[in-house]
């Protein structure tokens, strides 16, 4: 009997810590009652948990009768974690990145030719800033235009070991991503032949 209660006690502790761990926001005392309906016992359990995590890299803390885990002050100053904030890449930037990935090395004007609209100044800048594209070699054409290509950081982000792993047009079509039988550009030199007025 005694042993049983103890087991039960440990399971309750685990449930409490797991529930607080998995909850998207600090957990209210009341919603923890599902694991122990006796309030005094629940308080004791939470105190015990607080103690358990006291010397961890993260601690159980209570704020206004809610409970959550927070990185301990001792280590948080030593941690070099930057807070991550999600950002959406604009549609123009996403398309431009895709075109660079598939056609690299490619010049700015060739990108514009594929997209059919001129690139605003910030579009390539943002991709360069993220570190996904970099200037490549210059083409031996009038004006020696600079080309753009993707970086290792780009490969890393998308979990690719090289750009050849990008699904080809046939695969995109087969996967249902490409529904139109349009002109396929195999290399940028073909772009010059794309002249709608001809």
């Amino acid at each position, binding site marked *: 009997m005694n042993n049983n209660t103890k087991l039960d006690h440990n399971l309750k502790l685990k449930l409490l810590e797991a529930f607080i761990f998995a909850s998207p*926001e600090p957990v209210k005392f009341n919603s923890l009652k599902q694991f122990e309906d006796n309030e005094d016992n629940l308080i004791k359990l939470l105190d015990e948990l607080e103690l358990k995590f006291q010397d961890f890299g993260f601690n159980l803390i209570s704020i206004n009768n809610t409970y959550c885990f927070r990185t301990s002050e001792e280590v948080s100053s030593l941690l070099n974690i930057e807070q991550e*904030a999600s950002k959406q*890449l604009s549609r123009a930037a*996403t398309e431009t990145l895709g075109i660079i990935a598939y056609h690299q090395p490619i010049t700015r004007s060739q990108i514009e030719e*594929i997209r*059919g609209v001129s690139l605003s100044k910030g579009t390539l800048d943002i991709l360069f800033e993220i570190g996904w594209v970099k200037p490549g070699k210059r083409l031996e054409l009038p004006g020696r235009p600079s080309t753009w290509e993707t970086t290792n950081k780009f490969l890393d982000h998308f979990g690719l070991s090289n750009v050849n792993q990008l699904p080809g047009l046939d695969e995109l079509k087969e996967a249902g*991503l490409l529904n139109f039988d*349009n002109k396929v550009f195999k290399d940028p030199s073909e772009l010059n032949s794309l002249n709608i007025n001809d």
Partner: protein
Amino acid sequence: MTQNFVKNNILELKLEGFEGPIDLLLSLVKDQKVDILKIKILPLAEQYLEFLKKIIKNDIEIAAEYLVVGSILAFIKSRELLPKDENENDEIDDLSEKLKFQILKLAEFQKLSKNLLLRKQLGIDFFKRGEHEIFSKKIKYKYELSLYDLTKSYAMSISHEDKSKMTIAYSKLFTVERALTNLKNSLSFFKDWNYLFAFLPKDIKDFLEMKSAYASHFAASLELAKEGHVSLKQNSKINDLQMIKND
């Protein structure tokens, strides 16, 4: 066995319930309630072909894949019924074995796939940390772009017809405005009757532009007449139009 199918109305399912001919064969095997390793191809072939015959009657647009496997089974069946030739028999056995192997393989993968989805799953059966803790003032922007989104966007950008560069071709037509200006300028030099089309610019080389110049000068002359600047006359239907400046 075929009778069973009719009774169970499986025929009415057409082929929509099956993921291809091997899947259909597999379900016929399962219906036999025999060990997959002990499949007898001949009775299976008969069932499949019987099934196929009825389907074709009901639905002529049957998937080619079903017919291909049907033809293999028909081949195996016909060879089994003919007097035996040793070499040929090897070939049939080989084909039967391969077909059995494919059924077995699909059965195995169907089972494994089903079991895969029966596993405990993140966000349903177990969880990651729920909170995104903010404990640093340094903010690093992370762009949430998946490979799927990237390739999808690329596919769209090269497939959208409205994305094609469109330029309006330079117009080679001679406008009425130009004709009006031309006539007004010319009239100051000519006091008498003159043929209207003598006023046409001499340097037009393009055929379409020339034709449009005739049309626009005619329209311009009417406009000038209407405003009272000129008078127009035509001696007969086949003669050219003449114009004189009004005083």
